[in-house]
C-alpha cells in the first residue's frame, strides 16, 4: 500500500470525479470531494516525509514496467514540495467551496461542479508527479479542460464568465499544443518521452536546430500556461468571473503547477549546461519576469474589482517566480520554489476571503468593502495580512520569498535588477493601501448591504493566513525543502 502512494495521489481524486458526478445530492458530492482531497493531502504529506527520509527520488513504475518503456512517477525533493501545496490548497478550498458554491451555482450543477473540481485537482497532481513528457500533456489537458468548465460555471451569476472561459480555452489550448509540438520534436529526435532518459539522450543532438525549436515551443507553451507577461491576458478575466471557489483554487495552484513543469523541463531535461540556455532563455525569462512584475503591479493599483486586482497581482507574483528561474542559479531556483509555495498560501487566503464577500454582496469591489473593516473584521484582517505578505513585510512568508529572490539576483551581481524587483514588490503597498483605506478609513456608506461574518468561510481563509505567518516566522524548514528542490536541478543551493 505504502509503495503505491505516488499513484494513489492521482488516482484518488481522479476516480472520485465520475463518482461525484453520479451523486445527485449536493452535500454528498461535496462530502466526497472533501474526503478525497483530504486523503490526497494526507498522501502528499506522507510522500514528503518518505522522500525526505529516503533522501533520494522515489520512482514508481506504473504497471511494473521499468523506464524508459513504461511510465514512471517520480517523487523527488521538487515534486514532494509542490504536491502538498496543490493538495493542501485543494483541501482547504474544498472546505470553503460548499457555501460559495451554494451561493453562486445552480443547485442542479453541483454534482458536476465537484466532478470537474476533482478532475482539475487530479490533473494538477498528475503533472507534478509524472516523469513522462507526454503524460504531462495528458494531465495538463485533464486539468485544463475541467478548469474551462469550472470557469464557465460562473455564468449563472456573471455572464462574462462565458467569454472569459472561451478565451481561456483558446489560449490554454494553444499553450498545450505548443507544448505537445515541442515534446513531439524531442520524441522524433531521441525516441523517448521519459524525462530522465530524454535529458541523457539530448546530449547527442544538443546543437541541432530541431532541439532549439523544441525548446522554444515547450517554453512558449508553458509561458502561456503560467501566464507569464505578455502571455497573461487570459488569466484576469478567467479568475475574475469564475465562481469564487474556483478563483481561489486556481489562483493558488494552477499557474504554480505550470511554473513547476517549466522548471522540470528546462532544468531537468535540457539542463543548465545546455548551450545558450542560461543566456538566451535566462535573459528572456528574467526580462519578461521584471516586466510582468511591473505591469501586473501597476494594473493592480488601477483596479477596483478585488478579484481582478489580485489576479493582476498574480501576474506580478508569477513574474517574481520567473525572475527566480531567470537568475539561472541554484539560489534563484530555490527562491522560485519558496515563492511558489508562499504565494499559493497568500493568494489562497486572499481569494477565499474575497470569495466570502463576493458570495454575499454579489461582487467584491473597493466600493463593496467600504467601511467593512468594522463590519467583518475577521475576514478583512485575513485580506490585510495576505496583502502585507504580498508586499513582503517581515514575519510573513512573503518576506522570505523576497529575501531569497533578492539574494539570488545579488549573487549574480544584478544590482539593477534587484533594485527593480524590490521597487515593484514595494509598489504592492499601493494597492494594499487602497484596501486598507477603503475598509478601515472610510465609513460604511448609508444603505450599503450589511455584511456578516461566516465562520465556514473565514476559517479556511484563516488556515492559510496562519500558514502564511507560520512559514514567515518558522521558515527554516521551508527554506531547507526549497533548497533541496532546487538542488534536484542545479547543485549548491543553501
Amino acid at each position, binding site marked *: 500500500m505504502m509503495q503505491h502512494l505516488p499513484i494513489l495521489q492521482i488516482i484518488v481524486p481522479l476516480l472520485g470525479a465520475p463518482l461525484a458526478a453520479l451523486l445527485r445530492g449536493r452535500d454528498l458530492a461535496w462530502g466526497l470531494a472533501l474526503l478525497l482531497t483530504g486523503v490526497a493531502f494526507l498522501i502528499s504529506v506522507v510522500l514528503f516525509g518518505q522522500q525526505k527520509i529516503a533522501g533520494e527520488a522515489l520512482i514508481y513504475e506504473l504497471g511494473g514496467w521499468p523506464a524508459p518503456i513504461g511510465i514512471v512517477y517520480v517523487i523527488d525533493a521538487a515534486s514532494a514540495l509542490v504536491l502538498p501545496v496543490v493538495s493542501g490548497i485543494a483541501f482547504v478550498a474544498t472546505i470553503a467551496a460548499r457555501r460559495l458554491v451554494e451561493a453562486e451555482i445552480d443547485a442542479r450543477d453541483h454534482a458536476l461542479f465537484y466532478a470537474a473540481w476533482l478532475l482539475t485537482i487530479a490533473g494538477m497532481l498528475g503533472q507534478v508527479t509524472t516523469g513522462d513528457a507526454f503524460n504531462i500533456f495528458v494531465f495538463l489537458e485533464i486539468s485544463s479542460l475541467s478548469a474551462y468548465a469550472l470557469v464557465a460555471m460562473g455564468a449563472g451569476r456573471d455572464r462574462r464568465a462565458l467569454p472569459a472561459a472561451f478565451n481561456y480555452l483558446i489560449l490554454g489550448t494553444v499553450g498545450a499544443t505548443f507544448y505537445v509540438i515541442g515534446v513531439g520534436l524531442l520524441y522524433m529526435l531521441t525516441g523517448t518521452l521519459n524525462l530522465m532518459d530524454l535529458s541523457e539522450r539530448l546530449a547527442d543532438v544538443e546543437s541541432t536546430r530541431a532541439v532549439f525549436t523544441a525548446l522554444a515551443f515547450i517554453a512558449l507553451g508553458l509561458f502561456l500556461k503560467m501566464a507569464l507577461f505578455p502571455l497573461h491576458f487570459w488569466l484576469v478575466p478567467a479568475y475574475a468571473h469564475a465562481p469564487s471557489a474556483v478563483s481561489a483554487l486556481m489562483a493558488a495552484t494552477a499557474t504554480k503547477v505550470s511554473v513547476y513543469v517549466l522548471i522540470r523541463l528546462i532544468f531537468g531535461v535540457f539542463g543548465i549546461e545546455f548551450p545558450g540556455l542560461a543566456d538566451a532563455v535566462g535573459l528572456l525569462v528574467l526580462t519578461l519576469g521584471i516586466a510582468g512584475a511591473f505591469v501586473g503591479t501597476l494594473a493592480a493599483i488601477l483596479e477596483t474589482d478585488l478579484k481582478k486586482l489580485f489576479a493582476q497581482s498574480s501576474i506580478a507574483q508569477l513574474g517574481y517566480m520567473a525572475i527566480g528561474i531567470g537568475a539561472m542559479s541554484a539560489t534563484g531556483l530555490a527562491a522560485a520554489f519558496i515563492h511558489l509555495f508562499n504565494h499559493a498560501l497568500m493568494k489562497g487566503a486572499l481569494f477565499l476571503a474575497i470569495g466570502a464577500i463576493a458570495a454575499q454582496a454579489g461582487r467584491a469591489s473597493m466600493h463593496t468593502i467600504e467601511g467593512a473593516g468594522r463590519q467583518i473584521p475577521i475576514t478583512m484582517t485575513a485580506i490585510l495580512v495576505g496583502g502585507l505578505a504580498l508586499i513582503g*513585510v517581515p514575519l510573513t512568508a512573503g518576506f522570505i520569498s523576497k529575501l531569497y529572490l533578492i539574494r539570488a539576483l*545579488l549573487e549574480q551581481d544584478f544590482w539593477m535588477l534587484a533594485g527593480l524587483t*524590490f521597487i515593484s514588490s*514595494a509598489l504592492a503597498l499601493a494597492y494594499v493601501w487602497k484596501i486598507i483605506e477603503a475598509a478601515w478609513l472610510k465609513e460604511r456608506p448609508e444603505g450599503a448591504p450589511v455584511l456578516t461574518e461566516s465562520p465556514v468561510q473565514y476559517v479556511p481563509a484563516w488556515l492559510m493566513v496562519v500558514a502564511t505567518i507560520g512559514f514567515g516566522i518558522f*521558515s527554516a524548514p521551508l*527554506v531547507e525543502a526549497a533548497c533541496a528542490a532546487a538542488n534536484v536541478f542545479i547543485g549548491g543551493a543553501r
Partner: protein
Amino acid sequence: MAVDTLIPALLGLPLLASALVLLLRDKPDLRDGQALLIGVITAACTVRLYASAETDTVHFISLAAGLDISFTPEPLGKLFALVAGVLWPVATLYTIGYMRGAGEANHTRFMFFYAIAIHAAMGIALSGNLLTLFVFYEILTFSTYPLVTHKGTPEAMRAGRIYLGILVASSVVLLLFGVIGVWVLTGTLEFKSGGILAGHIDPFYVPFLLALFAFGIGKAALMPLHRWLPAAMVAPTPVSALLHAVAVVKAGVFTVLKVAVYIFGIDFLRETASSDWLVYVASFSILAASVVAMTKTNLKARLAYSTISQLGYIVLGASLATSLAASGAALHITAHAAGKITLFFCAGAIYVAHHLTDIKDMNGLGRIMPVTYTAFALGALSIIGVPPLAGAWSKIMLMGGALDNGHLLVLAALMISSLLNLVYLGEIVLRGFFAAPTHGLKSEAVQEAPMSMVLPLALTAAMSVALFFAVDYFILDFAKPAGG
C-alpha cells in the same frame, strides 16, 4: 533582576499596561492610575538596565539562517530605552491632565495605543539585529497612527495619511531593501561593535547602501522626507510630545545612529568616506528647517520644524564618522528629548489654560504662566545649546567631531543654526515675559494649567539642567568595544 528578565519585563510591561487600559476602560481613575504605576516601574527597570554592564543577547525566535528575533542591550540601546522609559510616566501624567483638561474623547483608545507605542520603542531600543528593529519600527508606525488621527476630523485624517504614507513607504521601499542587502552581503543582521560590513562590500556601493538607510528611516525626518512631522501636528499635544521626544523621531535617529555604529561601523565609514554626502544633506536639513521654523507663527508648527532641524544634528553626528561626533549624537538624543518634551508640554499647557496656539497672541503670557514660561525658557536654552543646560554638551561634542574630521563648513552651519534657534525660540520667551499683553487675556493674575500638567513640565525642565551636571553618565564611548 538579571538582564534576561529585564528585557522581557521592558517589552512586556507596556503591553500589560495597554491590556489593563482596555480591561479598566469603565473606571477612568483606575485605568490611568495603573498606566502611571506601570510607567514608573518601567522607568525603574530602564534605569536598572542602563546601570548594568550586561550585554547578553536574549533570543526569541530564529526564522532562518542569520535571521533572528533577538534582543541585545548594548550601551546605545540602553540609553534610548532609558530616555523612552523615564519620559513615559512623565508623559502619562501629563496626558491624563491634558486629555481631561482639553476634553478630548476616546481616552481609552488613546491610552491603549500610547502604551503600545512605548512597547515598540522598547523593542527598537533593545533590538539585537536589524530584522527585529525593522519589525518594531513598523509596529511603532502603525500604533501611532490612531494617535495622530485621534481627533477624527478630515484634517486629522489627511495628516494621518501623510504620516502613514511617508513612514510606511520609505521603510518598505528603502529601509527593507537595505536590510535585505546587508543580509545578502554579510549573511547576518546582527549589531556588532565595529560594524559588520567591512570586507563584505565594494566601497563604491557603500554610499548607496547608506542612502537606503538614511532615507529609508523616514522617522529621522531627514529632508526631504520630513513632511509627515509638521502634518502630524494636528494630533493632541501629548502625541506631539510622544512623537518628538519619547518615541517616534527618537526611534528614527536612534536607528540611524545604531546602523552607522553597529552595521557600517564608524571607522569603516570614515575610511571609505562614504558618509561625506550625508554630512552635507544633514547640514542642509539643519539650516533649512531652522529657516522654515522662523516663518511659522503656530507654536506647534514652529516646534515641529525645530525638531526636524535638531534631528539633523543627530544624523550629522552619525555621518561625521568620528567616535566623538557619534557620542555627541547619542548625547543629543537624550538632551533634545528632555528639552523638546518640555517645550511641547508647555505648548499643551498654554492651549489647555488659555486656548492659544499662535505665537502672536502669546504676548505677556509669561507673567500669567510663570512656571510654564520658565520651563519653556530652560528647554529653549537647552536646545539652543547654552550652558548650564544639557544641549550645550552635545553641541560642543558635535563641533569637536566636525573639527576632527576637518569639516569646517559644518562647524559654520552648526553656529549659524544655533543663532537661528536663538531667534525663533527666543522670540517666544521674550514675547511672553516682556511684550505688552495682547487682547483676549482678561487679567494679569497668575493662571497656570492643571497641576498634573505643570508638574511634568517642571520635572522635564529640571532634567535638562540636571543632565548638564550629570553628563558623564550619558556619554557613550564608541571608540572602545561595546560592553568593554
